[in-house]
């Protein structure tokens, strides 16, 4: 593929976050893509799930309708509804395909558009701003989401162009993707962070909305065919779903077959709650929290199987801010 063609390809991006230091080696920039085939109940980036732009509303920033009605004045679809005296409610169903001028005129940035069509060139221009830091830290570009391979053509183009520019690349994937994209992306990657949430497919379907058969197959492709590609499996430990010793032991044993694969446990957190509120959605997990001593216990279960291939327990899954 020609560089020019790759550079012009566009994808739906909802955030580019500098100074990501917990997803892959070194100091990195994470590009968050929209759209995911799964809909995990604990998802901390709810704005990443849909594969179209979404309008969200942060009432805390709103100047209130008593003082400012700029958004109401420009809305062409009657999608903004008064909620009480002062605040708004968004009728998302009317917003599809709308250029969302309401967000442009909002002086306080209380209306947020999640998802912008951006070209590979444009995205890399932002990523390359921190090039000086990658050079010293062996960091680089991480593509996250959503599921990066959900926009497979764009992701492959982005990776290919990034490699042309000598950037180090990584993806954070839920594993649910077409094997063709997995095979196309793999040679362009320096690192893969691969989620395996649970081995029991019935449970998987119930909590993520998808089967894990394809996920595990893709994992095997990466682990067996791309022997030079550093691969880390990650399991978000979610209360009431996979926070048991048996579940973790099973995943660890599954991974143990592939000696170069590393493993990492991530504690469930509720930092995405606010974004559910912005999107006028109820966080499916409610108030539930992880048991206090559960992480160290599960960590030692995994350690018994994988020894030094287990990464230190220290951080949480990437949250797009």
């Amino acid at each position: 593929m020609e560089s020019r063609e790759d550079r012009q390809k566009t994808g739906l991006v909802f955030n580019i976050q500098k100074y990501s230091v917990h997803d892959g080696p070194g100091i990195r920039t994470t590009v968050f893509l929209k759209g995911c085939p799964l809909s995990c109940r604990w998802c901390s980036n709810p704005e990443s799930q849909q594969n179209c732009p979404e309008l969200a509303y942060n009432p805390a920033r709103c100047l209130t309708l008593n003082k400012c009605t700029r958004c109401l004045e420009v809305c062409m679809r009657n999608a903004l509804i008064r909620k009480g005296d002062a605040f708004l409610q968004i009728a998302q169903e009317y917003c599809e395909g709308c250029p969302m001028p309401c967000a442009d005129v909002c002086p306080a940035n209380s209306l947020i558009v999640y998802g912008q069509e951006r070209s590979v060139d444009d995205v890399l221009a932002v990523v390359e701003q921190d090039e000086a830091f990658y050079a010293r830290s062996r960091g680089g570009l991480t593509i996250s989401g959503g599921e990066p391979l959900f926009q497979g053509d764009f992701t492959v183009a982005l990776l290919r162009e990034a490699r042309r520019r000598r950037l180090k690349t990584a993806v954070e994937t839920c594993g649910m993707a077409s094997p063709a994209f997995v095979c196309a992306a793999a040679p362009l990657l320096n690192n893969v962070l691969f989620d395996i949430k649970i081995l029991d497919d019935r449970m998987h379907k119930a909590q993520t909305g998808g089967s894990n058969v394809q996920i595990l197959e893709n994992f095997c492709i990466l682990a067996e065919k791309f022997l030079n590609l550093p691969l880390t499996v990650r399991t978000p430990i979610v209360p009431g779903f996979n926070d048991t010793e048996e579940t973790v032991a099973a995943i660890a044993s599954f991974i143990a077959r592939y000696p170069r694969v590393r493993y990492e446990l991530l504690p469930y957190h509720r930092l995405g709650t606010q974004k559910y509120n912005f999107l006028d959605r109820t966080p499916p997990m409610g108030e539930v929290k992880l048991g206090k001593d559960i992480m160290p216990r599960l960590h030692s279960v995994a350690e018994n199987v994988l020894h030094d291939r287990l990464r230190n327990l220290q951080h949480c899954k990437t949250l797009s801010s």
Partner: protein
Amino acid sequence: MYTTTCECISPQEQRLHDAIVGKEDKFRKSHSRVFRLLERFECRKPRIDIERALYFTQSMQNTEGQPLVLRWAKALRHIAENITVHVQEDQLLLGRAGCDGRYGILYPELDGDFLDIAVRDLPARATSPATITPEDAKRVVEEIVPYWKGKAYHEALNAALPPEVHKLTYDDPQGLVSRFIVNETSSFRSSIQWVHDYGKILKRGFNGIKKEAEEKLSALDPLSPRDTCEKKPFLDAVVIICKAIVLWAGRHALLAREMAAREKNPTRRAELLHMAENAEHVPGEPARNFYEACQSQWFVQMFSRLEQKTGTTISNGRMDQYFYPYYKQDIANGVLNDEQAVELLECMWVGMAEFIDMYISPAGGAFNEGYAHWEAVTVGGQTPDGRDAANDLTYLILKSKREFPLHYPDLAARIHSRAPERYLWDVAETIKYGSGFPKLINDEEVVPLYVSKGATFEEALDYAVSGCTEARMPNRDSYTSGGAYINFAAAVEMALRNGRMKKYGDLALGVETGDPRNFQTWDEFWNAYVQQHILFLKSAFIQQHIIINLRARHFAQPMGSAMHDLCMKHCVDLHQPHIPEGINLGYFEYIGLGTVVDSLAAVKKLVFEEKKLTMDQLITAIDANFEGCEGVKALLRGTPCYGNNDSYADAIGREIDKISLEYAKKYSMKDLDIHNDVRYVPFTSHVPFGKVVSATPNGRTEWFPLSDGTSASHGADVNGPTAVILSNYNTKNMGMRDRAARMVNIKFTPKCLEGDSGTEKLVSFIRTFCDLKLWHVQFNVISRDTLLAAQKEPQKYCNLIVRVAGYSAYFVDLSLDLQNDLIARTEHGAL
């Protein structure tokens, strides 16, 4: 912006929590002596000791009419003969400038004209208070102040400023209240930060210097009027102070021997005798071992504080270099181990912590909150030959910083492109401790700049960090006047108000650039700003011209000059305006960069480009302090901001920087005979400066602090720490040499530096900072929760240390304004 569920706190926070629940400090056992010393004064309000001022004044009264340098030397001799000497329980070093505990001393030659008022107000003032006994206050009023009325430096400066400069400098005819626009700082201290060549004294002793002076005296041409009237008094003064410091040390030795005779505990008796032996030998003679080297340096440092008020406290220089030969020799001979070496160093740290650099004037106090101090100890860097300089002593000093919970001394680590990984790792681990040490100074910026200003590579490579962010070449640098601190946010306000400020009413302080409502283009507004900017620079440079010449008539420093190669060579005091062969590295401060850039960017974009606001709407909102204009305020806050690696904002920052650089280039060497370079280091002045500036077009409300140094406005940096660093880089004009330090503050959550991988990433961050050739960076590693808790329950957090400007201070010693300012600094973390 980023938060985390996983708890993680810095070692300093852990230590505080342990103390709150009553656990013993884990390093207490291995550092028990210094912990005992520390506990005697920690968290206490300092006392004023008047002896130095009293003896200084007595002597000056009796030497009227003689050459100033000679009078100063005689005054020092009088102090050395009469000041109370102390031997402190548990201390291993001798030499103090005042009473037991935390203390400050007075310098009436600077501010004697208002010392009486100041002494009255000092105990109750909001920033950096101090106590004084009623008897001492009375002696100040009756025995010290009367002599200085009409003679103090501050009075002379106040009288000498032309009216148009005076009105931007002071708010009252006596010059007691600052205008906080073009603020002079030369009356806060007789000299800006300085560092001595301590290594010279360790090698030669003051007797060696005295011999040199005597030889020069005998070689003078008795028929030459210059030799007789200028060189002779200088050399006589050098001989006097060389004897005076030896005499002062000797009085300590005597006292230590007396106390040894009475001491029942044999261990302490032996210690006292050892101390007496040291003080009988140094600083007169060369040091023979590590202990003597420490004692010699300590006497020099403390006597230097008696000599004059060096702004920001006299610095300690490259301690890991000049002490190293003594350390190495003693270790090789088996007479010293690391624990003993650290104990001696920590005895110095404690001694430094007890001395408070008092700023008597209210403006001085507000600029230097929390008992500011910068006795910078420099570690690392390169040798004069350009090799890496880190050694075992470097690592020992860094380790002491992690184990002994004290914010003295201020520690500076030099960074260069070939700094070994071990060194950077230790530096990063020390930063992670969380008390703000060390600050980092970059050889890759400082060395080439100094060479471009006339230094040799050897001199430039051997620079020592001095004061807040500065670098000195102790035998080549020769500039000591305080420079102007300029409030450029006031220039923005004046551009909006036709040369006026809300705080000062209808008085036209600036250039009357017209009503901006009539401006048609951005260029017109920009020009209005530039005219105010140039007026401020002009005023600052006139101030400086007066200061440089005035200072020589008010101050002398025979001891500091005796330690300077050029002063000795040419027989001239360091306070003289011109030292032959010297390089005068001066500077003035640009305060409020973030505030100004963000304000100008907002005006440019919203009023002139997008036309979302009219100038009238903007001014109306600013006049109302945004009350009832929340929409306008929100709009203003949404425009491009400095600190985000945003090319729109950064381009404005670079243009602003260039105006100052070009002015400096044109008028520094030609008119002032100094490099009056552009610097961005506020200390804590961005707080009082903010208090005179009304609301600004970046959405900042009136009287709120300005942005500090080259950091972003509060909370405006939303793209993480790499963007803060890059904006700094983007706003520099690398093609010009007329620049000095830029200060950058970065606040990290402990979380994002957690574990070895966190340290590794911090090391990469530091290496990139070095690659970008930025002058300075410093870090606070602390969680917001801890700061909020400390504000609520200060008694529990009385030893929480935070980094303020180029120094660290106890958080609870800071004013509420500054505490809030620190809390509002954006916290960088990532999940």
